[in-house]
């Protein structure tokens, strides 16, 4: 089979993203198990003192490197690949994309220096008036702006394609990637404004104080869509690649998949107040409106669940699966990329359930900032997304490097170990949260922990230990693959599932950008505008900075 040839230079460029991403995951994830051990009362930080001063310095490294760096770099690399490969054309202006990439790299380094110097122990949410060194804010800004620049490069490539292919439907993997990037460009305005108008001038001493409530409002303008920026690339793979890998299945509904992506674009920004249900400075009426919109954005995920599972069922039946569940065993579990993504998807069911509970307005009073929250997002970003990206890397890295995946059996076991470890870890975190345990506390040392939490705290540590093993296995597989002397015989075939109905027959409005963009902006103005105006009009820059770590 002949497939579109991505140039060697572009493969290298995409590969650089994946490399930075995996390095970030390697360092960032190291702290995860240490944190989990701390919950169980097994303290390692005493020995880390020369390098890492505290649990919280480590937690900042963990949050920033995993949730921001690993995700963003992997995503920008994967989406760049999808656009080039999907549209079958090279980047219009590779230099622009390179500039974006290097801005991101410099940004990560700029933020890393104060973090490692314990000058930015503010966690990945960097809520003021905790005040980090200015280089931390500059670094974050560079990462965001660099990702914008890369996005512009991809939009320009698309614009050229569109000029030459006026009536064609955008190929799905490119379409989904471009929507994801557009979503990112819109939603990151929140943190951009937060940093540029408040945190950066404040950390440089140009202004005396900040308004913590307004800062949170800006932050969560970006913070919720951020999770869709993480998730949608995994969805692209689940929709359009996994069915093919799992047994030559077809995408059950191309048009509903596209509709789901548009709904994500429109709905994922104007609901950030669902992270601020228990903030003192936001009126309940707006919180309630945002909660209804949050229920709305759950809907396209339900659509995704149906289409993805149906496409997998199609694959399994093609492989001879019979009966209601017989097709599941026929999926290609021998392929580590398939195994990782299927296991990621299974845990995402539970991530979705927890997310819906968090999002349910006053139900948040039971859950807010308890251990339930990290329990939840280790199923979503740390598993549904991370384990899917790991699965993608199992074909993408051999594709990019031309080197054979080292020990596929290890890779497969790695995914299962992650699955088991995460079930134990996350289940106990959820239960602890329901019992009232707070997040962001090394619970093994907290003075108020009742005896009834102890067995669960032990399970957190146990899950962390198992996850540690899985993480090491992944790094070993990646390292050995990247340095593997054995090369693939011919270029790895990129798995792209066909759609059951010809996409050319899907409605034209699913391939028009303007109405959806206007709709997105209008909704943001309607449900964010009034509160933003009010909070900005009443801004009180009365909080000086604190370094209390």
């Amino acid at each position, binding site marked *: 089979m002949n497939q579109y040839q991505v140039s060697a230079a572009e493969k290298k460029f995409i590969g650089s993203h994946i490399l930075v991403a995996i390095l970030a995951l390697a360092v960032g994830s190291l702290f995860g198990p240490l944190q989990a051990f701390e919950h169980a009362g097994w303290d390692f930080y005493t020995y880390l003192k020369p390098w890492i001063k505290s649990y919280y310095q480590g937690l900042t490294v963990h949050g920033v490197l995993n949730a921001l760096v690993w995700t963003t770099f992997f995503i920008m690399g994967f989406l760049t690949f999808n656009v080039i490969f999907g549209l079958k054309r090279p980047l219009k202006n590779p230099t622009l994309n390179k500039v974006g990439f290097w801005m991101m790299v410099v940004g990560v380094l700029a933020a890393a220096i104060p973090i490692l110097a314990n000058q930015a122990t503010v966690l990945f949410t960097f809520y003021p008036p905790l005040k980090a060194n200015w280089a931390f804010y500059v670094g974050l800004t560079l990462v965001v702006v660099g990702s914008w620049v890369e996005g512009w490069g991809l939009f320009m490539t698309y614009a050229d394609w569109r000029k030459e292919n006026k009536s064609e439907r955008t190929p799905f993997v490119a379409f989904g990637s471009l929507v994801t990037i557009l979503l990112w460009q819109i939603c990151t305005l929140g943190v951009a404004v937060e940093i540029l108008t408040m945190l950066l001038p404040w950390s440089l001493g140009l202004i005396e104080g900040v308004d913590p409530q307004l800062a949170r409002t800006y932050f969560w303008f970006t913070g919720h869509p951020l999770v869709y920026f993480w998730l949608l690339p995994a969805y692209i793979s689940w929709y359009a690649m996994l069915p093919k890998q799992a047994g030559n299945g077809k995408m059950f509904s191309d048009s509903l998949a596209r509709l789901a992506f548009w709904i994500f674009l429109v709905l994922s920004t104007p609901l950030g107040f669902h992270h601020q249900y228990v903030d003192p400075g936001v009126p309940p009426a707006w919180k309630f409106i945002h909660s209804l919109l949050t229920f709305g954005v759950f809907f396209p995920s339900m659509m995704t669940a149906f289409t993805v599972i149906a496409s997998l069922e199609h694959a399994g039946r093609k492989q001879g699966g019979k009966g209601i569940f017989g097709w599941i065993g026929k999926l290609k579990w021998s392929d580590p990329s398939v195994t990782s993504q299927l296991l990621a998807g299974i845990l995402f069911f539970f991530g*979705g359930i927890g997310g819906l509970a968090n999002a349910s307005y006053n139900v948040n009073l039971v859950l807010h900032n308890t251990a339930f929250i990290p329990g939840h997002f280790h199923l979503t970003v740390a598993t549904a997304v991370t384990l899917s990206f790991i699965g993608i890397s199992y074909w993408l890295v051999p594709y990019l490097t031309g080197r054979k995946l080292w020990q596929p059996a290890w890779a497969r076991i790695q995914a299962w170990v992650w699955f088991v470890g995460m079930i134990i870890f996350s289940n106990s975190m959820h239960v602890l949260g329901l019992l009232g345990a707070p997040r962001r506390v090394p619970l093994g040392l907290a003075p108020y922990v009742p005896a009834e939490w102890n067995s669960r705290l032990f399970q957190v540590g146990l899950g962390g230990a198992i996850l540690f093993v899985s993480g090491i296995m992944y790094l070993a597989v990646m390292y050995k693959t990247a340095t593997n002397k054995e090369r693939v015989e011919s270029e790895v075939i990129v798995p792209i599932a066909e759609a059951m109905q010809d996409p050319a027959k899907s409605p034209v409005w699913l391939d028009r950008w303007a109405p959806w963009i206007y709709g997105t902006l209008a909704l943001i103005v309607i449900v964010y505008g009034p509160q933003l105006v009010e909070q900005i009009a009443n801004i009180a820059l009365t909080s000086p900075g604190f370094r209390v770590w």
Partner: protein
Amino acid sequence: MANKDKEDEEFRPTGTLAILAIFVVTLIAIWATIYMILVGRGGTL
């Protein structure tokens, strides 16, 4: 490209519905449990 095969035409995702049914039952059970904790703890006004 994407041709509608006869076998695709006849494909009914019954297993999908079964999985989703299990999912929905779990979803309702967990959500309702947490909701009942909330309600059991009473008003805040």
